[in-house]
């Protein structure tokens, strides 16, 4: 073996690239959510004051607050949720 590090050590190239790849995927997911929010602000600001989402013949009620509030708060929770997933994924097994 050219690399002296244990394959489960967090400085091992395999672990580094695995973490970087997973981080990048989660980053892209969040970027899409964040980008969606900005796009809504730019292109469809009128939708932000709606309190329900029309879905065909049905409407999904947001429970009172409008889309702006729900999406905004959801972005904060999404950051935390994805962060916890990342922590789970990158957990290095004990060597």
């Amino acid at each position: 073996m050219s690399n002296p590090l244990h394959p489960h050590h967090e400085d091992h190239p395999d672990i580094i690239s695995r973490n970087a790849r997973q981080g990048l995927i989660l980053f892209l997911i969040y970027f899409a959510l964040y980008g969606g929010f900005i796009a809504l602000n730019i292109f469809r600001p009128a939708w932000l004051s709606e309190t329900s989402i029309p879905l065909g013949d049905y409407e999904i009620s947001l429970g009172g607050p409008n889309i702006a509030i729900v999406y905004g708060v959801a972005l904060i929770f999404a950051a935390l949720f994805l962060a916890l997933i990342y922590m789970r994924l990158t957990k290095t097994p004990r060597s």
Partner: protein
Amino acid sequence: MIYSFSLTAMLVFSSFVGTVLGLSIYLGRKAKSSQGYFAAHGQIHWFVNGVAFAGDYLSAASFLGICGMIAFYGYDGFLYSIGFLAGWVVALFVIAEPIKRLGKYTFADALDARFNSRGIKLAAAISTLVVSIFYLIPQMVGAGALIKPLLGIPEFHLAGLTIPPFSSGVIIVGLVVTLIVVTAGMVSTTWVQFIKGSMLVLFCGVLTLMILHRGISTNPNYTGTFHAPRTIAAPAAEILENPAQYKILPETGPWKNKPYVRVQEVATGNVRVWKKTGQINGFPMILSNLSETQTLIELPDGKRLVNGQPQGHASGQSDFFTIGSVSRLAAHDNPETLEDESQNSGPLGPLQYLTTLQNSQVLLWKSEKTFTDTDGSKVTIYYPQATPGTDVMVPGNAPMFAAIKSERWQDKANLVSLMLALFCGTAALPHILIRYYTVKDQASARKSTIVGIASIGLFYILTLYLGLGAMTSGTLDPTNSNMAAPLLAKSFGELPFAIISAIAFTTVLGTVSGLILAASGAVARDLMLNVLRMNINDHQTVQAAKVTAMVVGLIAIVLGILFEKMNVSFLVGWAFNIAASANLPAIVMLLFWPRTTKKGITASIIVGMVSSLGWILLSADAYKDIYGLDPKLSLVPFNQPGLVTIPLSFLVLIVVSLITRRTTDEDRANFAR
């Protein structure tokens, strides 16, 4: 009276500063080496570091600026919160681990890990200094602006010099912070930030519970300084039918064609200004309804008249009455209709609070642009505007975010640019990056970022309630949105006010200490040790860093006093844009593009820094606020540079890397021949 000297606030603040300084001096004994001074020996527990991230990041702009923006404009302030938090996702998923793995003490260390290039270290050190100083200015300006209203410190006379309260605020913060940093570097900075971060989140949580418990009222006169603005129905009978008592002044000079009526009380000669509000289908009525306004008149001799009388609290004097209320309150058991109104909602749940406000009508106060009257006095008028809750709970009310309602592409590009800079800037702020060196390994770096995200995210949700609470608690100062959060606390009593004031002030301490430390590391380690290759040992490096911290502290004090009149959020925007344009492309490409060269990195940092700074200095905002020129003359299409300069910096890195790589290959070929 809105502000007065508060002994309790002073005591709470002094005891906090005393504790922190004592702790710093105690810990200072342990921070004699570079490893101790710059990185707290890499031994900080991840949880402490995570909360310290919050203490480092949540600056006065976050706390006071966002609360104030929400209190005055509604949702818009929350838009900032979303952008500020989103930046942490970049920090965690992209930056945290490599920065920890590659670097040791400074951001330049990590960037240069592969190359050992003086060029990279020089560029990174300069960008660290530039970003830190730009970020320091608004913090110091904030400290100066806070000291009088929060602690009620009057002006000092010292050896024939008069030191105004603003300057003493800047000086106090500058000295205390420098002392903290110089005594124990990163060790004490971490603990200051930890204490500040936990106090901030904790007390904002308590305040939010108090807001929800109190609910919303149409007459929120909790401090005795509020009254709902009066209106006089058309025709303004009270005025017209009492010619012996009231006189309507003619609309002359700058008052011509303005929607105001000046009414003079004959007996006293006091002049009050009323706003014409009545409209039918968008057309003004011949005799309008009149609504009470508040006025500030600065006479040519410097005296100030508030609401027609000299500002003060003696008889024959007057001061602003506090504002912030709902004009119509939806009953929360039937929130769909305004017809079912109530005066007081009683305790509300977190969701109910938002829904009730959304279905009510709020009085938002606006101000007319200050104009000069015929006698040379400067007039500013503040007037209430009844706004449906549905408009308050969506973005687009603040001038900053008017883009959302605009159809111009430049306005939309400006908004995207700002949100991009907030997203990319966080993970490139030097004072945030150095915090990664205080934990022992990558796993701790990850965990502490997650604690940071949790505390910062929670804080931003709490500020939404604080802002909306301030909007409806009848304690706002119409002239100063930054005071919204402390004044909201005042509506619950003197002690909450004292605590929140002390926390607001320590907020400045926590962030400023991080910035000074980042700057001192850039000078002592990157410039002196690595670029100039000065022959200094570890102990001397720490000494040099301490001297630098003192110099940077002094520079911060001077700049803080010089930039007194600058808009704080404007300056924070600068720092985020410069950090995002100069630092982020270099870090990201170094990690994800194997063909990155040292010249590519250096060029990208320099181009990112110079282009974003140049763009800002040529923007309409700078024309208006710095040079006092017509903003239309500005040479750039929108204010925020990020949308152009971040991609530009990436592009420069790619192009320069490709060019320099080819040269290197050729060189190698030539060498072989």
